[in-house]
């Protein structure tokens, strides 16, 4: 098969490619953050207790908090009371599964095409 000769890439075009890639990267990382969608959804249930007893802390646990410098239970109640919410919708889960599987399938398929070309050029002299 014909030997593929890649075009030489100029300085400006190289720079442009880097800018594109960087824009994608920062986009992927910052867009969810700006939209307030990122991060673990940990929240304090309403009406949660503010005293050691109401937060269910035993003597040893209170002693360790005191040793850490927290003698006022109200000051640390936000940390003790916060919980994740693990309820999720099956639809959201299915959407995620489809996205991940589709991603890998797409990639393996394109890779396979490109790989056959590489092998053909390498071994069919």
């Amino acid at each position, binding site marked *: 098969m014909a*030997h*593929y000769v*890649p*075009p030489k*890439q100029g300085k400006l075009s*190289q*720079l442009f*490619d880097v800018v*594109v*890639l960087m824009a*994608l*990267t*920062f986009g*992927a*990382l910052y867009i*969810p*953050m700006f939209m307030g*969608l*990122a*991060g673990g959804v*940990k929240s304090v249930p309403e009406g949660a207790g503010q005293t050691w007893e109401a937060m*269910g802390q*035993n003597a*040893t*646990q209170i002693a*360790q*908090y005191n*040793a*850490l410098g927290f003698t006022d239970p109200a000051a*640390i109640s936000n940390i*003790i009371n*916060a*919980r*994740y919410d*693990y309820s*999720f919708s099956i639809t*959201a*889960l299915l959407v*995620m599964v489809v*996205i*991940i599987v589709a*991603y*890998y399938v*797409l*990639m*393996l398929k*394109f*890779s*396979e*095409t*490109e*790989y*056959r*070309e*590489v*092998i*053909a*050029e*390498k*071994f069919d002299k």
Partner: protein
Amino acid sequence: MAEFDITSKERDGMGPHGTNVGLLRVLGPAHVWALGVGIVLVGEYMGWNFAVGKGGAYAALVACWFAGILYTCVAMIDSEVTSTVAAAGGQYTQAKHIVGPLMAFNVGLYLVFAYTMLEAANAITAGYLISQVAALSGFTGTLDQRPFIILSIMFLAWLNYRGVLATLTFNLVITAIAFTAIIILFLSTSGIIAPSMMHHAELFAGNAALPYGWIGVLAAMHFGLWFYLGIEGTTQAAEEVRSPARALPFGTLAGIMTLLIAATLTWYVCTGLIPWEFLGDGLNGSVAPLFTAALLTKSQPLVWLLGVGTLFATLASANGCINDASRAWFSLGRDKYLPGWFGAVHPKFRTPYRSILFLVPIALAFALKAPLDQVVTFSILSGLLTYTFMPLNMILFRKKWPMGSITRGYEHPFHPLPSVVLLALCAITFFAVFLGYGTQLVAMIAFYIVASLWFHFWRYRFVSRAAQFTMPWPRPKGY
């Protein structure tokens, strides 16, 4: 190691024509261990405790061991492929030879992201630690953490720029100190050489051990990876070790054993001293759990030891990350997967200096602007995508080049069991990330899909086809 005549025809690392400037083969198995464990050990000093927050103390232990199995599979698979495909770029070069160019491009990006984000997380922790030390020493103002975050990244980038041998020897020393600190903390709190300070029974009372029930155990797998994330980076040194076929499997497998020990001891000490709600909140609670544990022992020497341990662990990790991320970026540039400008090697220091420099501002941008758990999650996600690729890679490797068709430096036992186990554990971890961090997961995958399309339809035109297949192997079976 700075002065080389680059026109020498004798020098190791030169190409056959005597004019090429390549990386230098100077490392031994201990450096491989230091690179692997050095990157990861910081996971014991910070980050893993988010697993306690996601599922409680027992959930974190289950996650720690299941992730341990996952990484043992990773290490076995990696050892076999890398001892055979010995080139900088590690999994990227493997993917290029075994799966195909687009997969390789994606794997290269996973590696760069996993390591650059981890580097940012390390710098954040180093800055935090220095502010803690300032507070402990009686400083009353608010310390500006930024100069310390920047300094840790700049110093390590400089070290990496100047040469790989000094970089990894430095890593060997500080990693060994950080590991010893964990052992000493365990010995002096668990009742072996001093009276026990452990309160497991009381701290686990009520529903404190498994506050979310079994779904919490699944959710904890997300940060369970953090105990070991980065051990696969040993492969990046393949072009710089003196004897890849021997040093890489040895260093990697010794590394995973070290980490299993360190992870279990860390879990034991921290959960026995720190109430889980505080331990599990790595942002407002215990940012550096081993250091918090040392504070609770009220022993000044232990506080100092673990303070130094935490700082060294973060530096060792950031150092290894700069090393690995720049090798991966360099390899992508060398093959024109990225602009060829990045494929340059410094003629004196023999390092991929342009890649090292280029990644500095990116690491800084995230270290200074993003919260720790986000940065950690991005790193974990990129790592997870790499681990999902590995079993696919392994199965194809054995299929395209069956045993005996090429010389392998190391052959892992029980194929395909490790690959299947690894794939199953990855699926569980994807679900764990989905619980609580689903948006990032989707954003990340969307990024890789867009980047893949960009590569396939635009960037790949600059890549020579046959020239990227550099291993002296026979034609793959079935092609």
